[in-house]
C-alpha cells in the first residue's frame, strides 16, 4: 500500500515539475505572441485585437533591410561553415595526420570564449588591418564562431561511422571520390543538416559579435531590435518576433523532408 502511494507521489511530482518547466519555457513566448496582436502602444493590458503592427512591419523599410541582411549573413555563414566543417571533420579522421589532437583543442576553444571577448578581438583585428566594417566583416565573424559548432556536430556523427563500408565500396569498384559522394556524405548527412541548422540559428540571433563587427550602416535584426527597444518602439518588435518564431518552427518541421530531398538528389 505504502509503496503504491509513493510511486503515485513520484508520478505526481514528475508531472508537476514537467508542467512547471514547460510553463517557464513557453509562457514568455506565448505572451509575446498574444501581445503582438494587442492594440496598444505599450504593454499595459489587453486593449483589443489588431493586425496593424504586422502591417507596419511590411511598410517599415529599415526592418526589411535588417531582415534581408540577417538572412543573407545566416545563409552564407551556414553554407560556408558547414562545408568547412565537413572537410575539417573528415580531415581530422585521417590517422596519418599527427596534429589532429592539437587542432581539436583549437576547435573547442572558441566555444568557451565569451562572445564579448570574441567580438572585441575581431573588432580590434578589423580595425588593425584597416578592413572597413560592414557585411563582409560580419560574415567573417559569423563563420568564425559557427565553424567550431559545425565541426563538433559532424565529428560526433563520424564517431560511429563504420569504415568497413568504405572498404566494401572500394572493393566493389568505387574510387575515393565516388565513396565520398555515395557513401560518406549520405551517411553523415543527418550530422551535416544538424550542423547547418545550428549554425543558422546561431547566426540569426547573434547580437554581441555582430554589434562589434558591423559598424555603421549594416544592421541585422538583433541589432535593429536592440536599437528599437532602446527608442521604445516595442510593438513592431513583438510582431517581428512572432514571425521569426513561425519561421524557426517551419524550419524544424521541414528538416526531415530536407534530408530526404538531399539524399535522393545525391
Amino acid at each position: 500500500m505504502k509503496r503504491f502511494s509513493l510511486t503515485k507521489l513520484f508520478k505526481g511530482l514528475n508531472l508537476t515539475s514537467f508542467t512547471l518547466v514547460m510553463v517557464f519555457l513557453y509562457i514568455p513566448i506565448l505572451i509575446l505572441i498574444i501581445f503582438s496582436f494587442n492594440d496598444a502602444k505599450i504593454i499595459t493590458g489587453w486593449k483589443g485585437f489588431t493586425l496593424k503592427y504586422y502591417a507596419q512591419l511590411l511598410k517599415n523599410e529599415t526592418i526589411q533591410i535588417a531582415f534581408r541582411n540577417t538572412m543573407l549573413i545566416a545563409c552564407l555563414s551556414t553554407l560556408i561553415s558547414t562545408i568547412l566543417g565537413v572537410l575539417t571533420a573528415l580531415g581530422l579522421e585521417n590517422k596519418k595526420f599527427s596534429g589532429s589532437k592539437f587542432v581539436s583543442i583549437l576547435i573547442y576553444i572558441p566555444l568557451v570564449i565569451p562572445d564579448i571577448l570574441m567580438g572585441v578581438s575581431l573588432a580590434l583585428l578589423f580595425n588593425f588591418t584597416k578592413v572597413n566594417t560592414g557585411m563582409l566583416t560580419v560574415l567573417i565573424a559569423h563563420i568564425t564562431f559557427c565553424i567550431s559548432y559545425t565541426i563538433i556536430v559532424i565529428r560526433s556523427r563520424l564517431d560511429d561511422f563504420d569504415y568497413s563500408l568504405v572498404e566494401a565500396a572500394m572493393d566493389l569498384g568505387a574510387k575515393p571520390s565516388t565513396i565520398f559522394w555515395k557513401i560518406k556524405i549520405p551517411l553523415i548527412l543527418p550530422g551535416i543538416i544538424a550542423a547547418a541548422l545550428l549554425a543558422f540559428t546561431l547566426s540569426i540571433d547573434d547580437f554581441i559579435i555582430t554589434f562589434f563587427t558591423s559598424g555603421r550602416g549594416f544592421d541585422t535584426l538583433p541589432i535593429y531590435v536592440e536599437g528599437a527597444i532602446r527608442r521604445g518602439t516595442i510593438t513592431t518588435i513583438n510582431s517581428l518576433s512572432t514571425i521569426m518564431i513561425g519561421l524557426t518552427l517551419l524550419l524544424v518541421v521541414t528538416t526531415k523532408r530536407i534530408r530526404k530531398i538531399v539524399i535522393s538528389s545525391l
Partner: protein
Amino acid sequence: MEEIRLENLSKDFDGFVAVENVSLSIQSGELFSFLGPSGCGKTTLLRMIAGFEIPSTGRILIGNTDITDLPPYKRQVNTIFQNYSLFPHMTVFDNVAFGLRIRKFPKNEINDRVKEMLTLVKMEDQANKYPDQISGGQKQRIAIARALINKPKVLLLDEPLAALDLKLRQHMLIELMNIHDAVGITFIYVTHDQSEAMSISDRVAVMNYGHIIQSGPPDDIYERPTSVFSAYFIGATNLITGEVIGIEDDYVQIRCPDGTGNSFEIDSTFHFQPAIGQELTISLRPEKIAISRNKPRYQEDINILRGVIEDILYLGSHTQYIVRVGDLRIRVFSQHKRVYFDDTALDWEEPVWLFWHDTDTWLIDEIPENVLTADELSEGGINHFQRSLKRPTAQ
C-alpha cells in the same frame, strides 16, 4: 583458366610479422580455405589479396597479371565481409546494383542482372527492403549477391558465417557450396572454424604464426598431418612423444616413456624415413582406438596398451573416455556399437585394454614442445607434455 599465385608474400606491421614468406597457388574454380587460430595471419593474407593491405614483400598474381600494387577498386576480386558491410542507406536492390552503377552499366542491364542475382540467393522478393529490415542470414545472401554481380575472378570470404547462429550457419554453408557450384569462380575462404573449412573446401591451408603449416585436401590434413600443429588444431588427437628403437621393412618400433620412468612400445607404418634413435611425435586420433575390458583375441599388427579409466563423458553419438597409461592421459572415443563388444558398462577406475591397428598410428617428424605453446597444449584438456614448453621459433 587463371590461377592465383602468392609468391613469397610477407606483411610486417611496424615490426609485427603477420604473414611471413607465404607461397601458394590456388587453382581456378577451387574452393580454398585458410584455417587457423585468431592472429595467425589468415585475415591479413585475405586483405592483401583484396588490396586493403600492401604486402611488405612478395607478389600476388591472377593468371599472368601482377595485382600486388593495384588499389582494391581496380582488382577483379570481391570480398564478403564478416559483418556484411551492407550500405545502410540503400535498399537491397541498390546495394546489389552498386558495383554495376559505378561502372555505368545501362539501366535495363542493371535491372536484369540484379534480379538474376537476387534469384540466385533467393532474395527476389526483398529487393525494396533496407538492410536493417532483414535478418542476418538474409544480409549474408545480399552481401554475396552484391559481390558476385561484378563477375569477379575471385570471391574472398572473411569468416562469413561467424555472426550467424549454428543452425543457420550449417544451412548457409550448403548454400555457399551450391552458389560456388553455380558460378564456378574461385572462392577463398577464411575461417577459424575447422568443421566449416573441412566440409566446404577442396583444399585447406592450415596457418599459424603467419606461416602456412600444411595445405591439402581436408582428409589429407586430418588423416595425414605433417605437422604437430595441424594434428593438434584439426579435430582431437593424442600426441605422444617417443624414440625410434627399430626399423623393419615398412614398420617402425617406437619406445614411448609414460612419465613414470617406465615405457611402452608402439608399432607404426611410416611415410617418412625415420632413423634409429630419432625423437618424434605420434598422433593417435581418439576414434581410432578401441577400448575394452577384454584383451583382443586377434593381435597381429595391433598395438595394445593397458590403462585405467579416469573419466567418462557421455556425448550422445559417442562416449569419451580418458584412460590413464602411466602418467599419460589418452583420449578415446567409443561409439555405442554393441555388435562389436560390450563397452557400455565400463566404469570409472576400471582397468581396460586400448588397441588400434598399426597403420592408424601416425608419425610426425616434429617434437610438440617446439611447435605448440603451453596454452595450446593445455587447451586440449589432456596432454602429455609436462616438460618445459616454449614458443615456436620461426621456421
